[in-house]
């Protein structure tokens, strides 16, 4: 077995680590998060220049042909920097859907613009009562003489307000909850009948509530059989979130350890109290367990469906629990200071807890893991 990175992956890691370390300070992050779109266009252009937007895509469409491990390298660094740019929405979810479901022409065209940093995407999939269920699509797609039209509601669409193109899931056949009959459609942000209400999220990002009222849309690939592509793209998204959480947990652990060594009460560093030492050790243990599962999820992205899905669900459970543990303990071991907006750690804690609310939480993935293990999953 070999856990080492390839030469290219090492270079990628150096590049993205350096970028985050040197150019993604907490102040800059906070300013970007507070801006109208919730991120920095200049930083996005830098990502493009460095090739980060090309990482997961095939070389044929201008990508770098990276796999899960390459994605992990990028996402982990982004987790360390608490990066707010729409990488998950545009590259990991949006880009993967185009790659997995799109026609050759759509791939070449859309991914070309994504890689160049000229196009932002968002995956408008979740619906108000759908919770984390991937097959819960009630939005209707209807074909008429002049093409496809979509009607429905999409909720908590990550970076939906910045996207130039929304990738909307909609039903061409069947009922809400059926895996069959789901299509993917491209909707321009300025399309008639489309309303996008953006809002901040509690972890410093942005999401949007989307209403579609007979909006003209272009099918992404063949309409109606998109579920496998959605599942595979979401698996990449989960692997990326797991790696991001690992990066953020690393910082939370480092910051807490440093504080334990420097903060003095009762005339000695608080890290000298054994009650706190063991708590710090538990945080580090959780981090290592989480890292292991993030690696496993990244490595299994190319596996067959059941093995891939079972692994990403297991990883998301591990990460959900570990991130929650590390976030709460990091705050507690700091005392009051980590309750403040000014102290970066509080924002790491918020992101760590909120990652569990993206693409399925601990309970959802526990059930899914059981179903996939029992072989009862469809």
């Amino acid at each position, binding site marked *: 077995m070999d856990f080492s990175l390839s030469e290219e992956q090492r270079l990628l890691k150096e590049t993205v680590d350096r970028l985050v370390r040197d150019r993604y300070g907490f102040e800059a992050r906070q300013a970007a998060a507070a801006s109208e779109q919730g991120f920095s266009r200049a930083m996005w252009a830098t990502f493009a220049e460095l090739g980060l937007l090309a990482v997961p895509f095939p070389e044929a469409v201008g990508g770098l042909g990276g796999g899960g491990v390459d994605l992990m390298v990028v996402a982990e660094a982004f987790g360390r920097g608490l990066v707010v740019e729409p990488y998950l929405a545009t590259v990991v979810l949006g880009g993967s859907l185009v790659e997995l479901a799109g026609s050759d022409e759509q791939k070449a065209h859309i991914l070309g613009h994504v890689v160049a940093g000229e196009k932002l995407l968002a995956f408008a999939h*979740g619906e*108000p*009562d759908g*919770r*984390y*269920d991937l097959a819960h699509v009630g939005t209707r797609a209807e074909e008429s003489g002049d093409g496809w039209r979509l009607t429905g509601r999409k*909720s*908590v669409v990550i970076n939906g307000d910045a996207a130039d193109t929304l990738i909307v899931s909609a039903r061409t056949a069947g009922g809400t*909850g059926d895996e069959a009959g789901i299509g993917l459609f491209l909707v321009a942000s300025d399309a008639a009948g489309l309303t996008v*209400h953006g*809002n*901040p*999220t*509690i*972890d410093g*990002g942005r*999401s949007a*509530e989307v209403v579609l009222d007979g909006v003209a849309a272009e099918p992404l690939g063949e309409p109606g059989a998109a579920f496998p592509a959605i599942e595979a793209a979401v698996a990449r998204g989960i692997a990326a979130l797991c790696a991001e959480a690992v990066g953020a947990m690393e910082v939370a652990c480092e910051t807490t350890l440093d504080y334990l060594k420097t903060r*003095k*009460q*009762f*005339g000695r560093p608080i890290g000298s*109290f054994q*009650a*706190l030492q063991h708590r710090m050790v538990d945080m580090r243990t959780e981090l290592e367990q989480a890292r292991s599962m993030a690696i496993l999820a990244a490595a299994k992205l190319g596996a067959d469906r059941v093995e891939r899905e079972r692994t990403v669900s297991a990883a998301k459970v591990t990460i959900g629990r570990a991130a929650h543990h590390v976030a*709460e303990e990091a*705050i*507690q071991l700091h*005392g*009051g200071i*980590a*309750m*403040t*907006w*000014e102290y970066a750690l*509080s*924002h790491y*804690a*918020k992101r760590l*807890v*909120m990652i*569990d*609310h*993206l693409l399925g*939480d601990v*309970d959802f993935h*526990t*059930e899914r893991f059981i179903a996939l293990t029992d072989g009862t999953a469809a």
Partner: protein
Amino acid sequence: MDLNFTPEEQAFRDEVRAFMRTDLPADVAAKVKGGKRLTRDDHVRWMTALSKRGWLGVNWPTEYGGTGWSPVQRHIFEEECAAAGGPRIIAFGVNMVAPVIMKFGTAEQKAHYLPRILDLTDWWCQGYSEPGAGSDLASLKTRAVRDGDHYVVNGQKTWTTLGQHADWIFCLVRTDPQAAKPQEGISFLLIDMKTPGITVRPIILLDGEHEVNEVFFDDVRVPVGNRIGEENLGWTYAKYLLTHERTNIAGVGLSKEALRHLKTIARDQLKNGRPLIEDPIFRARMAQIEIDLMALEMTNLRVLADVQAGGAPGAESSILKIKGTEVRQAITDLARRALGPYALPFQSEALDGGFNGEPIGPGYAAPVAAHYFNMRKLSIFGGSNEIQKNIIAKASLGL
């Protein structure tokens, strides 16, 4: 053994309920139930209503205008307040500094401050913690130097809850830096927030709210007559106050109300087309907390019965603080989970009383995640849960 409330206690509960129906301002209760922001005025209106009924001095003896209630009555009152959506009584004046003034103040101090606390003339805040003195409070550095019949105060307090609303602050200050032990050189001062040289600066918490402050003292002149008790004996008074800070520390009533709210959310949220409350995993999570809360309520009632019979709570109040805060935090944790993806949107403006815009997701969603993060404070302040465990280990277990 009889675990029922007596008929008198039942009648008392009915009386409290009737009062809540008639005197708790409906708009304030709606804000509390909806997790919205409360203004200074909201608090004052509620506490004024209590004061008019003679129920603000919950822990006060009748000679000072208090209720003279038994511990069990206080417990019932707290439970009914929480159930009705009454804001928590701001403790700094009525439940913290007042008992100290009653016990250690001069006749003049009692006559001056106590009525003003009871009629809401003065809003108090607590100036104990400093940047370098949190758990190790006795290491505080804010200096008070005697100059004729004044002290000149210099230094900084921090984490001052709602100090932005306060008229007065009670402070621990160092009057003898040479004392043999750090606890021995501390005095207890009452300081008018309008005194020249005081600056209040907001600290924004991780939920984006202005709840606490830094308070700076720059050559602030405080009359010696504003000192409580003896010079350099402030630590004794502070310790006495800390025992009062721990009354109702279990927060059983608040947790019960929070659990009811959680169930409302879980009934409304859907998972696979069914109410979340029917989901086996989520139901198990909720049941576990409900059971913990039942146990906590019994533990709390046992302690109260003991106090009622003349006992003094020792390590028990630390146990109640630890368990009470853990249960409350666990409930807010589940409420956040219950929301699913709708925990993410952060619609701060929806927390304002006058908000009539479109909510993002269900109407109850906006405060839930922010509240979860805010409640992390419970295990940090009022003597952190680690410090409580140290107390139990040392004082009660002799370790």
